[in-house]
């Protein structure tokens, strides 16, 4: 557009210049329109009705030039800001009343968008589309009969055979969640069809499997709040709405003010919509449970918290979740938007916000966003409402602590992470004395475990003396030990250890900046306690030498114990020695054991060092998994960091597979592109040659495929090890309890089976690939039903 042609006649140049000016003017107008549409409904000096009226007139005037843009902007807004659905529907209604053709075009456009979202698996967007389409009936843009036909065909999809339940669930969920908007209108115009629709839905709901439900509950008990399956809850809410004759008072309906204009408008009918069929690779939203932690008795005098089965509760929660979805990337804006919730006078807003945020934080299998996203939003909320929000959060913390015995272990971890992070932003001020009763409880009980874990995390964010200072005397058993290395070779009794002399020599050597070979020399003379009898050196395949590993690993890491950087530098400098020593899986496990022995009082260091050793390929993922499930580590099963190490290990493997997979995909695409374009450009000698050089060779792609396959084998092996060890350790416990006639459901058991479940949930996409192998090899019918159940619940999540 800015190209100037030197020999252009003035006439032509003028024309070009005028066109350029018009285009940039058009751009300005477009921007202004976009801004007006985006902001309608926000705080304004005029009433919403007059703003809508004004905007409708402006848009009508611009319809001829900007028709397509306006269609797009209106649709985008309705989908990105679903809580403003009725505002945009009113706008479309007013435009339709002024310009019937535009109304028809809009209907076509939104239907096209709906189908597109279905096809590309954008389930939330599709749901908001459907809601918007439904609301258009309220504005006389669409005929009610046309809508009910659409809803019927969507519900038909719920009864399709041979497709995953999660797909069928979605259609019912989409229809139900649109009903609050249009239920009343359908009740008035098409009562019997509406009733029939609901009966079909009810039959579906009664038949569907809820095998997945227990896996998604935040608490395993149903008191004081039932963790309802999400469709059950919505159905109960819709039934109550129906009982109230579909009159709901929560949704603002600007179109009511324009009834006289709108009812003069001509309505359109929907084109027939055939939802795309299911393909094997399609994924659908996972089922959820509705998280409840408050009821109206928890809130102080004032506006009442709507009941669990009121449609208002559903609408408020949807709206708050949508605000988080829209603003989660800007925490200050998110907090501000949450606090200026439009109907805040009618509800105990802070309680609703806190419940919704914790719902997301504790969501199973995983939270939608980073845990710290929620933590930082809560901090912003406390800053904006310092006289109320901190108190509500404190009350929430007390409630969560009270019910922690039955909390899912993954949620327990997140609660620990959140609480310690939150405290670290508020000088660790907390009324610890209120929890003094826990000092009397068994150490493995979730309550004292929670306090121990929180203090452990607080320690990582601060320092030991600080933790001692902030806790009362009675909590001394919960305060972690000072996080120092335990280096046995310079402690009392070191003289009697076999490795001490070599250890001291190694220290001198390293301090004198020796080479890795020189370090190896120091270790050379150390005997191997694993070797039975005397064998000539090269005679048999020697097992690793645990004494060498002990002396080297503990001495080197102790020398580097000053900081993480020091340890990393040590590992880097002597990487060669590590690789020599880590010759087998047993050797690698021995290395890990020694890292642990040195740093057992500093769990963070253990995590960081294991992570580094995985990264530098000193140890393999399978060695870490085997080590974590070994007898020495069994006493630490109820400590959070053991699972921290396990999950960072599995994550590393998953990332590795994803990376190779992504690279292969790119290479394949590049190859395909180069192939197809080279067949078109045979004449372009030079450029063809360049394209050949850029594209990956077939051999390169083949090698990538081989590497990916090897990685998949490693990944499968890792999961097999992990699940097999879980099964062994849990089965042992159950058998022992059976023999001793003891109740097997101990804190340890609950916690361990929770950890098994956590592996399934956190890594479900990856584990799914090996479902059938797991079923054939490990999770067979003869297994204890409690253990087998965990597997079946996982399978049900995407069935």
């Amino acid at each position, binding site marked *: 557009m800015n190209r100037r042609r030197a020999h252009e006649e003035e006439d032509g140049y003028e024309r070009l210049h005028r066109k350029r000016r018009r285009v940039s003017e058009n751009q300005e107008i477009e*921007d202004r329109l*976009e*801004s007006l549409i*985006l902001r309608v409904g926000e705080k304004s000096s005029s009433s919403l009705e007059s703003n809508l009226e004004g905007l409708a007139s402006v848009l009508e005037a611009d319809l001829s030039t900007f028709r397509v843009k306006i269609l*797009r*902007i209106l649709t*985008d*807004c309705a989908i*990105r800001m679903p809580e403003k659905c009725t505002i945009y529907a009113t706008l479309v209604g007013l435009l339709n009343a002024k310009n019937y053709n535009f109304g028809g075009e809009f209907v076509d456009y939104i239907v096209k968008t709906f189908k597109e979202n279905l096809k590309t698996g954008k389930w939330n967007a599709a749901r908001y589309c459907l809601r918007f389409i439904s609301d258009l009936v309220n504005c006389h843009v669409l005929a009610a009969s046309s809508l009910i036909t659409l809803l019927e065909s969507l519900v038909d999809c719920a009864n399709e055979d041979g497709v995953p339940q999660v797909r069928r669930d979605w259609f019912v969920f989409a229809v139900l969640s649109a009903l609050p908007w249009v239920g009343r209108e359908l009740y008035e115009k098409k009562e019997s069809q509406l009733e029939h629709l609901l009966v079909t839905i009810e039959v579906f709901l009664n038949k569907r499997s809820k095998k997945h439900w227990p896996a998604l509950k935040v608490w395993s008990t149903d008191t004081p709040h039932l963790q309802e399956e999400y469709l059950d809850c919505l159905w109960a809410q819709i039934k109550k709405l129906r009982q109230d004759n579909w009159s709901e008072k929560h949704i603002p309906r600007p179109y009511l003010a324009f009834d006289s204009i709108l009812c003069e408008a001509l309505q359109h009918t929907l084109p027939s919509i055939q939802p795309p069929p299911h393909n094997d690779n399609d994924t659908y939203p996972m089922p959820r449970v509705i998280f409840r932690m408050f009821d109206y008795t928890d809130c102080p005098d004032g506006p009442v918290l709507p009941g669990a089965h009121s449609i208002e509760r559903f609408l408020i929660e949807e709206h708050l979740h949508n605000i988080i979805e829209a*603003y989660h*990337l*800007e*925490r200050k*804006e998110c907090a501000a938007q949450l606090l200026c919730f439009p109907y805040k006078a009618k509800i105990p807003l802070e309680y609703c916000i806190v419940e919704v945020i914790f719902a997301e934080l504790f969501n199973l299998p995983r939270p939608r966003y*980073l*845990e*710290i*996203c929620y*933590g*930082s939003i809560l*901090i912003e909320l406390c800053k904006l409402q310092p006289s109320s929000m901190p108190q509500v959060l404190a009350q929430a913390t007390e409630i969560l602590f009270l019910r922690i015995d039955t909390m899912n272990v993954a949620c327990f971890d997140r609660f620990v*992470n959140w609480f310690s*992070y939150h405290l*670290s*932003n508020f*000088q660790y001020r907390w009324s610890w004395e209120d929890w003094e009763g826990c000092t009397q409880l068994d150490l493995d009980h979730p309550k004292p475990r929670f306090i121990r874990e929180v203090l452990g*995390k607080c320690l*990582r*964010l*601060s*320092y030991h003396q600080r933790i001692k200072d902030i806790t009362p005397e009675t909590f001394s058993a919960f305060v972690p030990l000072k996080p120092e290395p335990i280096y046995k070779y310079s402690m009392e009794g070191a003289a009697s250890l076999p490795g001490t002399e070599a250890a001291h020599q190694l220290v001198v050597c390293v301090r004198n900046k020796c080479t890795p070979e020189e370090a190896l020399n120091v270790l050379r003379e150390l005997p191997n306690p694993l070797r039975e009898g005397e064998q000539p050196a090269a005679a048999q395949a020697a097992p690793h030498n645990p004494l060498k590993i002990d002396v080297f690993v503990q001495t080197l890491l102790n020398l580097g114990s000053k*900081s*993480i*950087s020091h340890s*990393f530098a040590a590992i880097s400098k002597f990487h060669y020695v590590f690789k020599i020593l880590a010759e087998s899986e047993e050797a690698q496990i021995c290395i890990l054991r020694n890292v642990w022995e040195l740093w057992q009082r500093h769990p*963070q*260091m253990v995590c*960081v060092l294991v992570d580094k050793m995985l990264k530098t390929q000193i140890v393999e993922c399978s060695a870490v998994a085997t080590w974590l499930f070994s007898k020495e580590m069994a006493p630490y099963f109820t400590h959070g960091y053991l699972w921290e190490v396990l999950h960072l290990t599995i994550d590393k493997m998953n990332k590795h597979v994803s990376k190779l997979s992504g690279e292969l995909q790119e290479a394949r695409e590049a190859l395909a592109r180069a192939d197809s374009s080279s067949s078109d450009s045979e004449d372009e000698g030079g450029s063809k040659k360049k394209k050949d050089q850029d594209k990956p060779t077939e051999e390169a792609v083949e090698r990538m495929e081989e590497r990916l396959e090897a990685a998949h084998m490693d990944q499968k092996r890792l999961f097999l090890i992990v699940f097999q060890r879980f099964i062994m350790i849990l089965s042992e416990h159950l058998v022992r309890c059976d023999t001793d006639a003891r109740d097997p459901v101990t804190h340890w058991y609950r916690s361990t089976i929770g950890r098994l479940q956590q592996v399934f949930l956190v890594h479900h996409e990856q584990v799914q690939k090996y479902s059938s192998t797991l079923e054939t090899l490990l999770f067979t019918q003869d297994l204890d039903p409690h253990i087998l159940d965990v597997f079946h619940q996982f399978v049900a999540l995407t069935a």
Partner: protein
Amino acid sequence: MKRSYDSMVNSSIEISSYRDQHFKGSRSEQERLLRMSSTLYIGNLSFYTTEEQIYELFSKCGDIRRVIMGLDKYKKTPCGFCFVEYYTRLDSENCMRYINGTRLDDRIIRCDWDAGFVEGRQYGRGKTGGQVRDEYRTDYDGGRGGYGKIIAQKFTPNTLER
């Protein structure tokens, strides 16, 4: 739609007005690097904040590639800043969104984009070896050596540091 939406979701990750005066290259080159960087400068740390504390907090946004502590040029002790390098740009953006302006070691810390660590940039550039801001500030900050260096000298004029 994209323009207004973009400003709605990207103000936390915008580059600041700080430009490194010692940067070897043009302003536009520096800005280009800032916009694709996955290295962050972290400021207003206490001198006593440890690498471990930094790892713990910043790991909440993703896998850390490395942490480089800012050091006094002469004493080689921490002087209140550091660099945190992530493997991906996304992780560092999350850090700008969720950690910048929150507390570490009871202090509000500031995160800002950095064009990339270069050997030598881990040292303070103030005359007495720490950060420039600690030369000139006039308040008392117990976590950052007390009073600013220049006014501290006014109290004890016979102990000029070299």
